[in-house]
């Protein structure tokens, strides 16, 4: 007993066609070209390129710092969203607007500004240097730049969901005897988690591919502070187009698998049992 449900809004064929053409031109064809270019390599050659010690070191660094930055933003970003939604105070609108600034600013500008501030004799970096901590030109510096660039993602995904949870729900829980931590654990966290994961995944994915801001603060030392996108640029500057695409394909595959896992996790949370 199958029955075709016709949607309320007509034009399914047209909209789907448009979607497919659009996706092909903007996403699928450029990515396919990359795969085709990389397929000039034999499996062994490909494997040798992506498992070279420098590439592996950069892989660890890029994914590690992007993960740390996403976690930091996951915590601070949720806090920011909480403050912006639950409290009214003078200047709230201005702070709200400032959250998006890292998107508007050219990333190179952000990188240069952060480096000037956090270099060992910069305005903030000098105090850290006194304590024996180096920020710029280390993985800390990279994480810092990525935290800046990916700040808006978690805030902007968590904020609307949090605004939709009526205050009364929390108050009702409190009336029933829930302690603040229990309210957070059993009322807020389950409702926020899917949105939070989306924000986390966006921040992580953006961080992995970020080039402009990181390049100034990273120091770019082989094996230590060299990110994957820089290695791609290095290969291109040697006119090694295939080597560059091989690393690009590898990054894409790793990112895809990670994003897929996050999506699956999200599904499990949204549909328990």
């Amino acid at each position: 007993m199958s029955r075709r449900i016709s949607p309320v809004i007509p034009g399914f064929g047209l909209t789907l066609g448009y979607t497919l053409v659009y996706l092909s031109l903007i996403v699928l064809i450029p990515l396919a070209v990359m795969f085709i270019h990389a397929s000039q390599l034999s499996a062994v050659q490909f494997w040798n390129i992506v498992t070279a010690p420098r590439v592996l070191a950069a892989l660890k660094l890029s994914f590690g710092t992007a993960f740390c930055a996403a976690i930091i933003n996951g915590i601070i970003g949720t806090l920011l969203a909480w403050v912006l939604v639950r409290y009214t105070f003078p200047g709230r609108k201005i702070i709200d607007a400032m959250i998006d600034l890292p998107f508007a600013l050219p990333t190179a500008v952000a990188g240069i500004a952060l480096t000037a501030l956090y270099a060992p004799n910069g305005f903030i970096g000098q105090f850290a240097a006194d304590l024996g901590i180096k920020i710029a030109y280390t993985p800390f510096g990279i994480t810092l730049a990525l935290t800046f660039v990916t700040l808006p993602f978690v805030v902007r995904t968590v904020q609307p969901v949090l605004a939709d949870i009526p205050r009364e729900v929390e108050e009702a829980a409190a009336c029933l005897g829930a302690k603040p931590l229990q309210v957070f654990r059993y009322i807020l966290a389950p409702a926020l988690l899917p949105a939070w994961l989306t924000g986390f995944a966006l921040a992580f994915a953006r961080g992995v591919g970020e080039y402009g801001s990181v390049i100034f603060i990273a120091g770019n030392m082989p094996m230590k502070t060299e990110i994957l996108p820089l290695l791609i640029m290095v290969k291109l500057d040697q006119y090694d187009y295939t080597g560059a695409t091989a690393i690009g394909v590898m990054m894409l595959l790793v990112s895809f698998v990670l994003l897929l896992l996050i999506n699956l996790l999200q599904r499990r949370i949204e549909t328990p049992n």
Partner: protein
Amino acid sequence: MSIRRYALAALASAVFAGSAVAKDFTLLNVSYDPTRELYQDYNAEFINYWKKSHPGDTVKINQSHGGSGKQGRSVIDGSPADVVTLALAGDIDEIAKLGKTIPADWQTKLPDASTPYTSTIVFLVRKGNPKGIHDWADLIKDGVSVITPNPKTSGGARWNFLAAYGYGLKSNGGDEAKAKEYIGKLFKHVPVLDTGARGSTITFVNNGQGDVLLAWENEAFLALKENGGADKFDIVVPSLSILAEPPVAVVEKNAEKHGTAEIATEYLKHLYSKEGQEIAAKNFYRPRDTEVAAKYEKQFPKLNLLTIDKDFGGWKSAQPKFFDDGGVFDQIYIPQ
């Protein structure tokens, strides 16, 4: 009626004749980072020079600047450059090989292997030279920190690297193992590898990192000239350096398509004239012309200069040996 017809014919012929004589030219010069000021001056000079023999023409010259390798790649990928004026002959070789818009024998088309001006690598140190840096051997002393860009991504950094390597060879009687040891020690003193020469200059000048910047001679002079740099920095000339020979070439396929082959060739030839050489010298590039060189003798200290062709067998053998994957530069960082 006949008068009117006559007038029309005259008008038509005038328009036709006019268009045959006066032409509009737009040239695109794709160059590398530190030549911005040089070509601004030179373009004005060249337009004047061209108008003397072609008074009706209008000439417009656009410049594009960036890292030499990046610029080379943009021409391979289809940038409509009429001429390229890059940092390394190797980059133009790649355009000839991969882009096929420049003939393979491009270096024979103009005098001095198509390199109208030269430069060298010198040290820029903090005012008063507090760390006492006078030669390459001083760079590997304890507590000295050296700023240079990444030779993988910067043309200038490759000249730096070869100059240092050349010193390692000469001071050890040509022993390659010792030279590698020296270069390995030197790069242990490098805390930051920026992707380009300008990035390194920012790191050294604005962010105050390092005791010495390995720089193009023309960039070092420029750093002294700008924002009171002369009060903050000194130039130190080492005992030995390398003759950096930035090459030029007409991108023939593009120029033919644009109908600019003649003017593009003249544009590069005029670089060798007295006027062109004078402008190069004023912008701190060493002129090829002996008369102009004599005039600016004081500006450019004499020092022992290695050349890429004689001492390193040209870019075609230096690039793979030192800078390609697994080359000498990689061996410094990757445990064998």
